[in-house]
């Protein structure tokens, strides 16, 4: 294990000291020195994730595809662009730069008041003695926050206007997970970062939680009809479980997408009454022509179009005026 760590940090340190730190030093950006080192790790993790998706997960999709190749194959290409932009940190970098000052201000204000987040180790000291348990506990909590944020994406009209981009894909695959509007990404990131600070997730843990969680989420979108068995599907989100969340609504299942929100652990859907288990396969996408029109558009056009949708949902009066014209 230590050998792997040495290789990993060796590459990270080399990349940072060769490519990043000289630039930061030259431009007097030493305040970004430590965050810069973390950013290098983020990009490296992104490369690993892309490799796992492109090589590992795609193997299963090619070997046992649920939906066969067809006329919608080309729609997947834009999702690959989303994945690369997200995993290699370009979108997260922009989000980080935008949210960092706000997150800092909130954190500093809270700390200046002398408030200390109720860390779990204080309540349950044994958690701090075991790295794996500590990681799992924080992972579960993180997932709980992600579950409720996801419900928010479906509950509020303005947020759904953004999140509908994620659901508009008719061909849900391992590349679909990152298909999100940048504002949607920003809101989710902000929510999760603030929550993580509240419960006291360490920076190192946060990176691993993020990586493991996102990989599981990518896999849950895989174009395969795979379940983990009765018990397994109640412990970990499987492709079959999550595909129901992406199912195209029908008159008989009008609200099917208001189920199976959990990103990683289905326990939240079970506890909060939103879980459904059904082996039947259904087409995926949205029953809304305006949203379905996202398909076939490129990354930039999707971003612009969905932003317009978001503004109209946020400001109905603007929407009415636009309609009147």
């Amino acid at each position: 294990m230590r050998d792997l760590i040495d290789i990993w940090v060796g590459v990270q340190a080399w990349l940072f000291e060769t490519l990043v730190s000289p630039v930061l030093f030259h431009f007097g950006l030493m305040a970004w020195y430590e965050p810069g080192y973390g950013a290098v790790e983020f990009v490296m993790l992104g490369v690993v994730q892309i490799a796992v998706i492109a090589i590992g997960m795609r193997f299963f999709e090619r070997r046992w595809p649920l939906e066969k190749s067809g006329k919608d194959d080309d729609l997947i290409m834009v999702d690959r662009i989303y994945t690369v932009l997200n995993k290699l940190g370009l979108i997260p970098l922009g989000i980080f730069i935008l949210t960092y000052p706000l997150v800092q201000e909130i954190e500093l204000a809270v700390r200046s008041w002398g408030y200390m987040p109720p860390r779990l180790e204080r309540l349950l000291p044994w958690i701090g003695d075991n790295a794996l348990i500590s990681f799992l506990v924080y992972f579960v909590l993180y997932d709980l926050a992600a579950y409720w944020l996801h419900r928010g994406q479906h509950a509020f009209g303005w947020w759904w206007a953004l999140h509908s981009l994620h659901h508009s894909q008719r061909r849900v695959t391992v590349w679909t997970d990152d298909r999100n509007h940048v504002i949607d990404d920003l809101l989710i990131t902000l929510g999760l970062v603030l929550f993580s600070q509240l419960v006291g997730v360490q920076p190192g843990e946060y990176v691993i939680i993020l990586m493991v969680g996102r990989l599981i989420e990518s896999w849950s979108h895989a174009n395969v009809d795979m379940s983990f068995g009765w018990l397994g599907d109640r412990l970990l989100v499987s492709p079959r479980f999550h595909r129901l969340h992406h199912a195209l609504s029908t008159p008989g299942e009008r609200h099917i997408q208001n189920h199976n929100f959990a990103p990683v652990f289905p326990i939240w859907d079970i506890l909060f009454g939103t879980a459904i288990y059904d082996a039947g396969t259904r087409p995926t996408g949205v029953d809304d022509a305006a949203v379905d029109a996202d398909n076939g558009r490129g990354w930039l056009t999707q971003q612009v179009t969905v932003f317009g949708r978001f503004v109209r949902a946020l400001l109905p009066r603007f929407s009415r005026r636009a309609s009147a014209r």
Partner: protein
Amino acid sequence: MNRLSIAALALSLVTSGAARADSVLVLNSEEASYSILSRSTRTEVARLPVGREPHHLILSPDGKEVLIGSTATNELLSLDIKTGERKRVVKGILDPYHLGFSPDGKWFVTAAYRLDHVDIYHADGFRLAGRIFIDGLPSHIAFDTESKTVFVTLQQSGRLAAFDLATQTLKWNVPVGNAPAGVVMLPDDKRMLVALTGEDRIVTVDPKDGSVKGSLQTGKGAHNFFPKGDGRHYFLSNRIEGVVSLIDTKDEPKVVGSVRIPGGPDCMDITPDGRELWVTQRFLRRVAIVDIDTMKVVGNVPVGKSPHGVFMLKSTATVTAGTGVPVRAASTAVDPK
């Protein structure tokens, strides 16, 4: 062997006299833990949880405990210097990033790097005497020998500030260069050295008014000092250059030795026999061991993520910087987080 077993073993080892004399503490700042290393075997004996984002540690004036600043939980965590066991937690110390006791042991000062203030406490009972808010990321601190003034580098604003300990008021605040970090008072009490992390040099500063009297090129990312113990030479970590320099401060400071330490070298401490310098390598998750006579790396020890402060448990005798001047400020360096 699970972690609890390792912890128990570590504590038993640390409790024994032989282990105590042989142990080194290293703070793994990004995984909320500290490593206990064995000097003789150059291995990590145990890794134990501690607070959140621990960066620096300091010996108490009575030499009985080591205080770890847990920045994100606003507290000091105390380890018994003899047993290595946790003794107590001092709460309500906001963002104790860099910390130190005045030479007379009466004052305890912290630089709150994230919260932009300097706190001056009565060391007896850690009673807050004054909190001075000051912009610019206060990072390192140093004291004058008379325990009247504390000096604080302001990393973002590129300044050095001096505060009167008795009145907790600002005496002066002047520019010294880009991203000043480590600061040390020389034994003559008439010169201070300030490391400029945003540049490749250190500057000599007059403690009376902060005026810059000289400059010495050392390496990119000049960062922090540690006294060799002879009252004349100081080690300096250059984080970006990946080099530790040895500086002779007699007359005009000059570089008289250097050793390549990759991975963002940061904090340092010297073995009790004065033969080895142990340097944390923030990015490589290791501690490098340097033979001081030859200035060559002779080993390294794997530790946790982003190792920062390092402390020799044996060095319970007050480290002296020259002519009997006790250096109570955390001897380890601060980095631009």
